[in-house]
């Protein structure tokens, strides 16, 4: 907690904002106006926020199908994101991408892939471009435990180590790939934790503690910026909602309601709120005002989205190729 007040407040606000956006999506999803498969990161907000708090506007990120949090934490435009969920022309991808394909190049979010692991080499390549252009930027890739099953992770990490690239691998381990628990897919801890820190800095942190994530990824980002090579940070967390869509999927029976409830009890936002209040960093009034502000911004974003035009069918063929 030895961080300045504005940082602590920004971390809390960032998480709360992502949570409230997702709760709003959930509450409206049944209306079937957002005709795109949403993958919520409720309960995982600390990873996106803790990491991105260390990044500059021109640092790159790549993200996945479960990418709302990464986009917002990096500073992606909220209105453009919600408009994309409504598949509007004003969406960040002009209604061509949907929930899984968010992008905001103005904050160096270069696009999210819904092919599990697909964004990992792309972020590594962005780091290669940074190196070749002698820029002072860092590239971060967010991926889950499903991606940790994929060979492309090994390929990318190997290359990053080989070339000592300024890339940070954020392994957001939420333990599930659709309904498959990690224990059904992996024989043990991922191999990279046994790499020498001289080649690659690695850590395992509580992904539900925003300060732990912030601290570990801060070291990783600074190392990358100083030319000290890649890092691999595993953030252990839990997917409290179902794979896609809204609401709890406890009824499916692949995990127990007790297990879900136990992890809901480890909510990264509730615990941090408690800490901030206890240490008198903020008071209830501050938090109430903050939430009011956030809800107002969300109201506006949804209004913007719903009042935005849909893409015109006559423009179906646009954008396949750049000029």
């Amino acid at each position: 907690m030895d961080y300045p007040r504005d940082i602590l407040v920004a971390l809390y606000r960032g998480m709360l904002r992502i949570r409230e956006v997702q709760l709003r999506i959930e509450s409206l999803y049944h209306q079937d106006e957002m005709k795109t498969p949403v993958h919520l990161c409720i309960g995982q907000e600390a990873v996106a926020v803790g990491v991105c708090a260390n990044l500059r506007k021109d640092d790159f990120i790549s993200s996945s199908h479960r990418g709302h949090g990464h986009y917002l934490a990096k500073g992606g435009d909220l209105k453009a994101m919600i408009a994309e969920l409504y598949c509007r022309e004003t969406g960040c991808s002009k209604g061509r991408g949907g929930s899984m394909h968010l992008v905001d190049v103005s904050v160096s979010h270069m696009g999210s892939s819904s092919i599990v692991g697909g964004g990992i080499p792309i972020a590594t390549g962005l780091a290669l471009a940074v190196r070749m252009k002698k820029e002072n930027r860092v590239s971060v890739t967010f991926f889950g435990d499903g991606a940790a099953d994929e060979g492309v992770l090994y390929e990318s990490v190997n290359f990053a180590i080989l070339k000592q690239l300024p890339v940070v691998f954020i392994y957001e381990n939420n333990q599930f790939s659709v309904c498959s628990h990690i224990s059904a897919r992996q024989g043990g801890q991922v191999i990279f934790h046994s790499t020498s820190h001289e080649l690659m800095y690695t850590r395992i942190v509580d992904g539900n503690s925003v300060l732990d994530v912030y601290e570990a990824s801060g070291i990783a980002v600074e190392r990358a910026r100083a030319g000290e090579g890649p890092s691999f940070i595993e953030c252990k967390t839990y997917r409290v909602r179902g794979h896609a869509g809204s609401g709890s999927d406890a009824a499916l029976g692949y995990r127990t309601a007790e297990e879900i409830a136990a992890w809901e009890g480890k909510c990264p936002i509730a615990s941090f709120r408690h800490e901030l209040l206890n240490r008198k960093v903020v008071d209830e009034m501050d938090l109430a005002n903050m939430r009011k502000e956030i809800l107002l911004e969300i109201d506006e974003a949804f209004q913007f989205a719903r009042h935005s035009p849909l893409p015109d069918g006559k423009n179906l063929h646009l954008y396949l190729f750049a000029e």
Partner: protein
Amino acid sequence: MPWSKIKCDIDEPDFCRVSDGGNRRLGYAEAVREALEQAMALDPAVFVMGQGVDDPSGMFGTTLNLHKKHGRERVFDTPLSENGLTGIAVGAAIGGMRPVYFHNRPDFLLLTMDQLVNHASKWSYMFGGVVNVPLVVWACTGRGWGSAAQHSQALQGLFMHIPGLKLVMPSTCYDAKGLMFSAIADNNPVIILEHRFNFKHKGYVPEHAYRVPLGKGVVRRTGRDVTIVAVSYMATEAFKAADKLSKEGIEAEVIDPRTLRPLDEELILSSLAKTGRLLITDSGWKTGGITAEIAAMVAEKGFHFLKAPVRRVTCPDLPTPAGYTLEKVFYPDEAHIVAAISELLAGHDGLH
């Protein structure tokens, strides 16, 4: 933008002959190499990567010693992680570079399909045109010496199928250089599929940097009786076949599409309007391949020109055999083209 200074050059010297367009003759590999060297000198964003690009053979000579001139930062060997490295090239391209990723065989491109098809080809469209991927992927189809089923596949049909990828298949030294320039200058993913037998060629190659435009085919030989659309190395076989047919009084028009995507449909259709007969030949498979697509395009847009059914000369739908007695019957050549055209003109439909 240095690329706008390189003019498109659509004057094509006569194919496979000592050209009167100029007398500077280069081997095929040297032509590719010269394009790379000039492109790297022109634009610091261009770099060359791939397994063995800096080795003593230099990717059949196409990348030979480039690292000595431009340094190992810009010409570097890669791990054999084809999919990961393709994604890394995509990321570098999104980050403002112009990577040229070399593979010595298209067979290895199958390991890159996730990044090529799910990512590179989608990035512009999927994000409403706000990001683009100026990437070149190069591979050379093997043939002969028992290369067999996993070292000689001609997979152009797979790549032609994918919206968002451009597909280039040169057949002359002149085009090998000019199309490489166009591919690097393009702001989109471009696949260049070479053929090992093209590397036997020497031809006219201007010393200056020039571009052969993507989407523009060329008439290699004019004729009134039949149109042959011949892709990559098959243009050489078609040209030889046309010379033989000429001695029998049959004049074939040979069209080299040079790029399959975009395809110069107009050139093919206007030739067909003149000849009324069409043979398509490709070094790949028949089913669902390049020749199938061109035949379908002609059936849709040029049916009324056809005086006879379209004929195709391709490899049979089989893995490539290693043994040379089998290879000999596996690969189509000028004799197959001559025979098919003789039948076509005699009114046989080729179904027997």
